[in-house]
């Protein structure tokens, strides 16, 4: 899970989930605590989905 996906592609990651921002990839300080956790939950769900998806090449899970 990373914000700058081209870098992840460069270093060879196979399942990539884009995140919010470099200093807070899985959060957003502009939101309330509850909203933020919902956002994080949503992002980690994407990661779980990525883990359950067969891939043959580097894939970004938007």
């Amino acid at each position, binding site marked *: 899970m990373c*914000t*700058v*996906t*081209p*870098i992840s592609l460069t270093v060879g990651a196979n399942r990539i989930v884009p995140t919010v*921002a*470099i*200093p807070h990839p899985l959060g957003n300080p502009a939101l309330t605590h509850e909203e933020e956790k919902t956002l994080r939950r949503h992002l980690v769900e994407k990661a779980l989905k990525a883990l359950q998806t067969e891939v043959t090449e580097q894939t970004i899970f938007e």
Partner: protein
Amino acid sequence: MRDFIIVTNNRQVSDRYERIYPVEYYEVTYMQTLLLVRDRVHLGHALLTHPLAGSIKPNETPFKSVMISRSKGETDPGSVQLIEESIETYNKFKNKKFPNMSLRMRDDYAQIDLSLLENALGSAVEK
């Protein structure tokens, strides 16, 4: 309003431009200026000028002015890479020499930094 901010630690730059353009002046070192810019880039501002503008080695000059976008968007990968590489480059130059620099030299370096920025402003404002 034009879509840029000048981040600088150079008084000559803020004196010259703060009435016309958005200028953020900080009384910090060259490196700290780069770090301030990095933090902004991490939050989605795009770099508009090269952080290593000028072939003056980063251990030579105390001054640095960088233009970033005023608006914030998705993190710009190119900007992230450029600022990080610039910070790494800064780190490989040892013997930082500006702590005891003569006033005349400081003035020269400030002047060069200003000139490099003027060049960039020429490109930014012409449009």
